[in-house]
């Protein structure tokens, strides 16, 4: 039942997008509002936005996950409060993050429509998933490891850096990749934060258009933009698939390794 629309969507994208797709399409600049030319600058903007997003979200997510799993008890009030608020945050619609990002980053912090505000908005959005995954991978480390590290007189910092972090690394990677997938696919949160400009971005303060926004713009606002919208959609879906497959690959390798060692 799910198979039919899945194959239909993929088939449709491939059928209509494959012809358009070429090396020059991926790397050249769009012309005539995207009807001609390629998606080079848009790809770069997307990468920059996602880069800003992960660069902010990963340290924050890692720190929070560490705090939740290593420094608070499971039933601790503060931990429960933070977890609860993150759960709600995970469900907040992306358009609402867009509003928030527009108000905070674009206007109050004065960053304007820029790659930086877009990336920071996305960071807020992917943070809950990231924290959840990383925290779970910390919880998966057996308690005996912590006890035996403590029994050897290892300091907390050493225990975390030498023993817990390496063991949680695959989980961290899966979390990062999941967040990456969500960030790449996001449109609604970016329209009013990173903006529409399809030029090659010169700095992080420039407005930049992401792939997803490009598809939306071509499909809705540009007459005759459909062929290129198909091709862009194909690129985007391809990216997302690569991201998803690699995350499940890492996850499955990780569990099989764990089983081996157990």
């Amino acid at each position, binding site marked *: 039942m799910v198979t039919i629309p899945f194959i239909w969507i993929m088939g449709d994208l491939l059928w209509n997008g494959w012809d358009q797709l070429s090396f020059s399409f991926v790397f050249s600049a769009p012309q005539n509002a995207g009807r001609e030319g390629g998606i080079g600058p848009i790809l770069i903007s997307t990468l920059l936005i996602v880069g800003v997003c992960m660069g902010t979200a990963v340290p924050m997510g890692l*720190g929070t996950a560490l705090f939740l799993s290593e420094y608070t008890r499971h039933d601790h009030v503060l931990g429960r409060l*933070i977890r*609860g608020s993150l759960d709600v945050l995970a469900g907040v619609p992306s*358009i609402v993050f867009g509003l928030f990002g527009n108000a905070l980053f674009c206007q109050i912090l004065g960053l304007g429509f820029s790659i930086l505000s877009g990336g920071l908005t996305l960071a807020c959005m992917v*943070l809950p998933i990231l924290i959840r995954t990383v925290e779970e991978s910390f919880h998966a480390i057996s308690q005996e490891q912590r006890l035996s590290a403590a029994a050897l007189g290892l300091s*907390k910092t050493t225990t975390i850096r030498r023993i817990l972090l390496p063991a949680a690394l695959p989980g961290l990677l899966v979390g990062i990749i999941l967040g990456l997938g969500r960030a790449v696919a996001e449109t609604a949160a970016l329209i009013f934060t990173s903006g529409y400009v399809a030029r090659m971005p010169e700095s992080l303060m420039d407005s930049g258009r992401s792939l*997803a926004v490009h598809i939306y713009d071509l499909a809705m606002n540009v007459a005759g933009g*459909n062929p290129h919208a*198909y091709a862009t959609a194909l690129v985007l879906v391809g990216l997302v*698939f690569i991201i998803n497959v690699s995350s499940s690959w890492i996850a499955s390798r990780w569990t099989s390794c764990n089983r081996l060692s157990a």
Partner: protein
Amino acid sequence: MISFSSNTLSRSRGDFLLLGSVRLLALTAGGLLFLVVAFLFHESWPALQNIGLSRFFSDPDWYPTENSYQLTSMVWGSLLATTGAVLFASPFGILSALFCHFYAPPLLARWYRRMVELLAGIPSVVFGFWGLMVLVPIIGRWHPPGPSLISGILILTLMIMPTIMLVSHASLAHVPIALIHTSSALGFSRWSMIWHVILPTTRMGLFTGILLGLARALGETMAVLMVCGNVVQTPSHLFDPVRTLTANIALEMAYALGDHRAALFMSGLFLMGVVALVVSTAEALRHRNTYVSAK
């Protein structure tokens, strides 16, 4: 659970440094929700003050430029599209989870699951685009104009079905194997085992899946924006074009100023409230579920 925080005696300065920074980061992350709510509230305050809550429902229509701010028809749009999608997607999602877990041979089940995961990962804008290019013309040929409530419902169904299926599948996987063996030993047929044993025990998990799907459908913007037609009206039947709250924000935010902008933030705040309620219900149910099964 081990807590190292009671170990305040360690002389290692690195430990204190780490604890401090980690605590700061965690508080920031935890405060993010508060920050989001605060900003939405702050930005929508002018609307509450100048327009007032009641006028969002009593004004004749949504003409922000003419100082008329009625949200009712868009609330209806959001609600109908979401309800429709949940009604369609829940049985399909749960049935395909059951199929995957109990009927399909392992290899097929694995591939099926992998495919559903990929489907869940397709960007919403791609769903919207596909709907615009394929679904809308088909519906348009059948019953003009095409962009309508029904196309929104169908696209949302496609989008939330994977969510429902994956969550249900996970909760089915948690059914104790002993329960299945016992009911097989009692000579139950597979279907009556599912109906009388599996479904009642996983009730909460399935419901959580539906709620999460609901939250996703309610918050979805791009796909409905692209296929629903975006006419501000309370739909009288399935083939009428509608505009949802989310689509409204996405469409008008770019040029909205003053009270208009505040009104959009106001609707965002409202959306967030509803979604937060749904999500926290789902989480509470899930926790209760795991608690019961842990016992």
